[in-house]
């Protein structure tokens, strides 16, 4: 007989699994549907985040490859480029088959600088470019003559740029850049490149002769980059060895695809954070499966005991219960994949490939189906559901059939022992994980600590529930009954509140982290924007000393602090860092987080936190930097907070820069006005003096724009938090619905003893409220711990910036009260169905 039951996969066994176990999901349709929805949402959100990001990175890569054409390597310099002599040295190398010089600028449109739209101009040597970048080939209209493409005022926008800017062949447009007078260009034809291949073509792109671009924008003798094609058989390392010592300091050889991987690396941490949120939603879904299965096992306790009594194998019982979870996980996973792709398509259309964060501006990704993430996330959904079904299955296996067949035995399931050992081990483990360094730039230790904090919170929930309920006043029979239930069966709270705890912890952690970040950004903006006006050069131009004097001479200006914006590639093959040249000691405020003294004989350099982490330096360390074409000795004098340049930035003294022979031209200025001077009047005067090549802003507008960008970046996190909390509330509703069904005999008996329907409803609402209170309270505690991990570990490791902790007490309190109220309502409504059944029928069922 035992063999009959033990034949896995055989007909009778499959029938048992199908009819007894899977059929139970159909009996509890609402709870199963909500579990399914939770798993579906979790999978969909996680997959959508990944798919969107991958599509954006792939599109960026396509755009980089189109612009680079058939180049094998590129010589790139800083913001101000490098001298044309480098081209001669490159062309002289025997391994180089072709080298195409490029000047890339972004001037503003309009003669007076009033039109703030920009155009991205690629100045190309058209003969060389034809061989190396055929996709960018300019095409003059028929009959324009063979040399039309070399006209000194000829511009060849892409078809997309023509449409965006309303241009037509034969028309003209004025372009402005800092330090040079506005120039008028003639639309001499179109560039052959397909706009879509350039990632949405943002800003609109045009091609022109390199000589014309150099001449008209003050770049004579300088290049932005050189695209190189190697002779067959020549390797990158051979060229690298040949160029050794031939490239000026700060000029590097890199592969064209590096831009793609740099952008991907920058956005990866943001994506990992979003994925974490989505996985948390999936985790909450897993807890919902746990609640559904735990209650289902309680409801079927005598049924399962009976099956065991008549010979059902323990292994088959476990298989059956896990099969129920697997069915939810599988269907949820498949639906989640479909919903994830639909969601990704919608989000790409509305927010773009960076989910609002600004990493892939101008990239218009196309969505493509890929099996690997689809299968991966579907499996993850199934794992979450199986994990949810695991604990109830274990409990069912542990039950002694004879005992479980007895009336009232189900209360044993709810008598959870407080797991102090698990709680302490989790919290200690989490603390240890916080000290691990990031792995592949991702704070895996931090995320592990987040999980440990959650597990610790869940382990403490039964004890906390008993303590809270024991402490509460019990003035009447209804509150006394509710309190007795929760005190004797704190496991009920664990089952119902596990989802709430997880979602509240997540939402609270994100709320605290975002509030901390936002307040830190506000404080930071106050520190870095102390002046009355800010001037910024545009179009790749710079202001020479003469123009600096003009600015200083404008009436009403008391003081001007100039900044030169350059870039420097300190680590080969990695993204360059911003190099800011400022008069630090003369009064430019740096939001320092750490100070030190540079080594003797070295000029001071102040590193941003990101630069410090990427370079692995501390105050007092030496750092050679290229200035004026030579390497100069600098020493780290401090570390400052920078929320703008995630790739890293460093500040050096203006006097040192000039002393070492650096270019005296500048790009930005902080302008302090004399008392009583109108900023608007000075801005107008500056526009008159400098023309269209500069943008002048008041700090209030800059602050507003920065915070608007911040809020846009984090908008998607609020959405994910909302979804997680909604899933948590589903948890309360489904748990109480299932528990109310399981307890309808109890309600029937209470109705016999004189409890009215309303009183039974109040009892359920109280249980829901207290359960949610415990879940929310422990969730807030765990959320606080997770927020601390996010602020102190995950953010510094992922984004390389620190922030001060700010807790939005009022919002959190309002959120907690609302959630507890909603949970009470959900429990009350969930119990309604059970109460509607006759008390008479209920007590007639065998207890």
């Amino acid at each position, binding site marked *: 007989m035992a063999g009959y039951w033990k034949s896995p996969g055989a007909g009778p066994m499959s029938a048992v699994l199908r009819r007894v176990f899977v059929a139970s999901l159909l009996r509890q349709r609402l709870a199963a549907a909500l579990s399914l929805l939770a798993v579906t949402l979790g999978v969909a959100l996680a997959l959508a985040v990944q798919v969107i990001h991958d599509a954006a990175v792939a599109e960026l890569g396509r755009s980089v490859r189109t612009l680079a054409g058939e180049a094998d390597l590129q010589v790139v310099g800083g913001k101000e480029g490098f001298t044309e002599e480098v081209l001669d040295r490159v062309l002289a190398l025997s391994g180089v088959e072709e080298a195409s010089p490029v000047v890339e600028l972004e001037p503003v449109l309009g003669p007076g600088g009033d039109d703030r739209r920009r155009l991205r101009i690629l100045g190309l040597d058209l003969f060389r470019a034809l061989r190396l970048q055929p996709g960018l080939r300019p095409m003059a209209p028929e009959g324009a003559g063979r040399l039309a493409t070399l006209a000194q005022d000829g511009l060849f926008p892409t078809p997309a740029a023509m449409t965006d800017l309303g241009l037509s062949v034969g028309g003209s447009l004025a372009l402005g850049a800092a330090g040079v007078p506005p120039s008028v260009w003639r639309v001499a034809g179109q560039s052959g490149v397909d706009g879509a291949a350039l990632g949405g073509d943002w800003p609109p792109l045009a091609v022109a002769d390199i000589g014309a671009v150099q001449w008209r924008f003050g770049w004579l003798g300088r290049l932005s980059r050189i695209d190189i094609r190697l002779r067959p058989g020549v390797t990158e390392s051979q060229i690298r060895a040949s160029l050794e010592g031939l490239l000026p300091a700060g000029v590097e050889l890199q592969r064209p695809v590096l831009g793609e991987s740099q952008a991907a690396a920058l956005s990866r941490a943001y994506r990992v954070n979003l994925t974490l949120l989505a996985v948390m939603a999936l985790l909450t879904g897993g807890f919902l499966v746990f609640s559904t299965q735990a209650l289902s096992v309680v409801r079927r306790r005598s049924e399962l005991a009976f099956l065991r009594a008549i010979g059902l194998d323990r292994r088959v019982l476990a298989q059956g219960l896990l099969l129920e979870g697997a069915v939810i996980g599988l269907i949820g996973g498949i639906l989640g994949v479909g919903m994830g792709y639909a969601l990704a398509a919608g989000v790409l259309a509305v927010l773009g490939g960076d989910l609002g964060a600004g990493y892939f501006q101008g990239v218009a990704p196309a969505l493509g189906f890929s099996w690997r993430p689809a299968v991966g996330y579907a499996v993850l959904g199934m794992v979450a559901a199986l994990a949810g079904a695991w604990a109830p299955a274990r409990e069912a296996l542990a039950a002694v059939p004879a005992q479980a067949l007895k009336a009232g*035995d189900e209360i044993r399931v709810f008598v959870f022992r407080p797991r102090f050992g698990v709680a302490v081990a989790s919290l200690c483990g989490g603390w240890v994980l916080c000290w691990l360094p990031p792995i592949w730039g991702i704070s895996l230790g931090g995320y592990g600590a987040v999980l440990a904090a959650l597990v610790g919170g869940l382990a403490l929930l039964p004890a906390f529930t008993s303590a809270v309920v024991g402490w509460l006043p019990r003035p009447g029979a209804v509150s*006394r009954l509710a309190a007795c239930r929760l005190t*004797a069966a704190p496991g009920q709270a664990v089952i119902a509140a596990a989802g709430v705890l997880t979602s509240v912890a997540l939402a609270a952690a994100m709320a605290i982290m975002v509030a901390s970040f936002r307040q830190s950004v506000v404080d930071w903006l106050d520190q870095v924007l102390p002046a009355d006006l800010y001037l910024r050069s545009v179009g790749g131009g710079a202001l020479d000393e003469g123009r600096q004097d003009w600015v200083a001479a404008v009436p009403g200006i008391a003081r001007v602090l100039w900044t030169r914006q350059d870039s420097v590639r300190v680590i080969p093959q990695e993204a360059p860092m911003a190099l800011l040249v400022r008069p630090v000691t003369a009064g430019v405020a740096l939001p320092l987080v750490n100070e030190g003294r540079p080594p003797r004989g070295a000029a001071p350099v102040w590193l941003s936190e990101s630069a410090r982490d990427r370079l692995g330096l501390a105050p007092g360390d030496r750092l050679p930097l290229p200035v004026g074409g030579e390497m100069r000795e600098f020493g780290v004098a401090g570390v400052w907070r920078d929320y703008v340049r995630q790739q890293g930035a460093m500040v050096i003294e203006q006097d040192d820069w000039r002393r070492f022979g650096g270019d005296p031209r500048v790009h930005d200025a902080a302008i302090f006005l004399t008392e009583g001077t109108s900023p608007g009047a000075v801005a107008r005067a500056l526009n008159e003096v400098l023309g269209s090549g500069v943008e002048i802003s008041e700090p209030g507008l800059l602050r507003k724009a920065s915070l608007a960008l911040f809020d846009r970046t984090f908008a998607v996190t609020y959405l994910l938090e909302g979804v997680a909390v909604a899933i948590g509330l589903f948890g309360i509703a489904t748990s109480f619905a299932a528990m109310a069904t399981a307890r309808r005999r109890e309600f029937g008996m209470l109705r016999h003893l004189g409890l*009215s329907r309303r009183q039974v409803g109040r009892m359920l609402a109280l249980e829901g409220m207290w359960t949610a209170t415990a879940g929310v309270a422990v969730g807030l505690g765990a959320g606080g711990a997770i927020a601390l991990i996010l602020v102190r570990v995950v953010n510094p490791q992922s984004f390389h910036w620190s922030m001060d902790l700010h807790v939005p007490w009022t919002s959190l309190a309002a959120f907690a009260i609302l959630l507890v109220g909603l949970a009470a309502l959900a429990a009350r409504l969930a119990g309604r169905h059970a109460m509607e059944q*006759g008390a008479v029928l209920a007590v007639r069922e065998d*207890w």
Partner: protein
Amino acid sequence: MLVVNGLARRIGSRLIFQNVGLELPAGACVAIMGESGVGKSTLLNCIAGLDRPDAGHVTVAGVGLADLNDEGLSRLRRTHVGFIFQAFHILPHLTIGQNVALPLWLLGESESAAGPRAAAMLEAVGLAGREGGWPRELSGGELQRVAIARALIHEPGLLLADEPTGNLGPEHAGRVLALLRAGIEQSGAAAVLVTHSREAARWADRVLRLTPDGLIPEVA
């Protein structure tokens, strides 16, 4: 204490019973017998105001049930009615003492006041000192004794017992019935005992049989 007049109940188109009449003064105990499905429990539920009859009326302690809403019926039950069920229905998450004290809680008594009375009641049913224990620690007979204590603790005027010995063996059944009878006599409550068992019915003052056309005296 209990007056039932012309009571009829249908379920769908099926007539369960009609013309049921019963008058029960305080201290009297009647046993109602009948075949399975004849409507014994339905009659009990109509008497308790848990089921609405299709015709006739029920008066408990001078109050007509037809005039009461759910709140009023609940109040009447917690004040004047005690229940004993076949399946005991002892709440597993309350201690034994709390289960017994439950009717007093419903009448507004504090835990501290209800506790000693529950302990005294448990002593009366032979379970002295067990008030701190849990229902899962008790046998079937002991659970029904707890149920009797719970049914009598608030001194109801009417006790309704539905197959009180249905889940017990003969030895336990005899002890439980003796206890029940003693409790009824001591409290002066009127009692309706629904049962299949002639042994159980023997403990009542009168034995009636429920038929579709009303209650008729049971012939021994």
